[in-house]
């Protein structure tokens, strides 16, 4: 466990040493503050459009940082040839994968914490209320989703040749699931066989990342989602992440490490 924690520490340190996080945070903050300064029909109490846009930026930034950070972990170790001394420590390949996963996932959690703190300050200054539990719920659900994304991209990093192709394919697939995942069963029923069965099978196989996108609950001041369902969604995310990490280990343990 100490080895896993040590590897994950390195990943977290890498996060705040690189520019990605700062650029995206400053961009998000600038756009949010600019939009917040606009007055519509001399009404200062309009806030929902700002919440929605800020949350969208947080989601995009979270995905970009997670995918970008995770996609380069294993390939960078191979390119710099630091994978050899790491495995000679001795550190097993499974521990490397777990360490990288933990580091990337914790890093994404820290990123979300900073973004949501900013979000809370901006919306609180306008609305004069802080639905703290609602924000916590949205943050936790998004973090769970990023756990699946991290595991998925880690699998991609041992399957695809380059970090760029891994990041691009992962990003496209994840966006596709977020937009279409909820509706695939409807789409399937409109097709003829065997396409119907194929699409329906896909619907059951894909991780339903769209469940974790509950921004609308914040944007439209909806009540909390019952915690039991959040708990079940968390278990679902954990199961998928474990499955993807297992698949990553299966591929990685047989992979040649020299370029």
């Amino acid at each position, binding site marked *: 466990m100490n080895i896993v924690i040590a590897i994950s520490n390195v990943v977290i340190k890498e996060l705040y040493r690189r520019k990605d996080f700062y650029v995206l945070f400053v961009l998000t903050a600038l756009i949010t503050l600019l939009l917040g300064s*606009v007055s*519509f*029909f001399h009404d200062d109490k309009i806030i929902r459009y700002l919440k929605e846009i800020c949350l969208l930026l947080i989601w995009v930034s979270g995905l970009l940082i997670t995918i970008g950070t995770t996609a380069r972990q294993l390939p960078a170790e191979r390119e710099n040839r630091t994978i050899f001394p790491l495995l000679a420590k001795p550190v097993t390949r499974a521990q490397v994968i777990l360490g990288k996963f933990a580091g990337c996932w914790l890093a994404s959690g820290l990123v979300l914490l900073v973004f949501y703190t900013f979000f809370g300050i901006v919306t609180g200054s306008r609305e004069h209320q802080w639905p703290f539990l609602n924000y916590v719920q949205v943050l936790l659900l998004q973090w769970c989703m990023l756990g699946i994304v991290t595991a998925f991209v880690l699998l991609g990093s041992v399957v695809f040749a380059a970090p760029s192709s891994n990041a691009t394919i992962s990003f496209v697939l994840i966006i596709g699931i977020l937009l279409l995942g909820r509706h695939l069963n409807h789409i399937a029923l409109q097709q003829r066989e065997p396409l119907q069965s194929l699409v329906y099978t896909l619907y059951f196989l894909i991780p339903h990342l769209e469940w974790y996108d509950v921004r609308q609950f914040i944007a439209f001041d909806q009540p909390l989602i019952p915690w039991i369902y959040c708990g079940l969604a968390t278990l679902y995310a954990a199961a998928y992440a474990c499955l993807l990490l297992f698949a990553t280990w299966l591929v990685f343990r047989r992979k040649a490490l020299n370029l």
Partner: protein
Amino acid sequence: MLYSQSGQDSVLRVLFGDGRRIFANHFFTKADVYYHSGFYPSIFDQAGAPRENHLAAEGDHEHEEHEEEASFLSRPRDFLEAFGRHFIITQHTHLANGQEREILPWLKLSAELDPQMVDSYTVGAYWLANKLGKVKEAEEFLREGLRANPTSHQILFSLGQLVYKNDHDTGSARNLWELALRRWREQELQKKDPDNISLDKITVNLAHLEENEGNIDRAIYYLEQARKVSPFPQKLEKQIQDLKGKLPPRSQ
């Protein structure tokens, strides 16, 4: 000939061309989404039955009809969909008590992107004046729309309603509604499907204005125009008969 409010199109408008109209439509729909606090069918739900924008048709719908149309969520087809329903908004609500302000940015944006989209102005002005008490802002918004669409009978009618209800300026309201009626006749008569709902509204309002001013003849004339296109001709016929009863015997 139509012209933009500044007399020349911005670079973005020239570059985007018709693309900005797609965004304008999207943002107009977004206002309807906000009106329903996120409870809104996706494009897949709408594919079966195209949905009318209820923001624009507020007041025209019977409650049950609206509830029926709004119940796009059928029974979940599988356990995944059933579970996923806990993470989307499934309650049909409307914004109220001043919260209608939340739809305004999207209507404003829609108007900016497509100044020829008349509904953005009329719907925005309706909510500003009637629900938010911002009559001055509503009038400014309508006048902005009128500058971009000088021949729009819808905007002229809305402006007339505004000055009649809020300023009680009968003269200006009459002028605006008569101009709206002229514009309607210029534009709609040659169409295969003229906008009879607008004609009905214009003529009925003119009739009530003239009735209140004591001009019974004019009131009857306008009601007779409205009766030709109204979905409730019998009601209007009764009103016409009632008004004819008020006329002095030699005028009947």
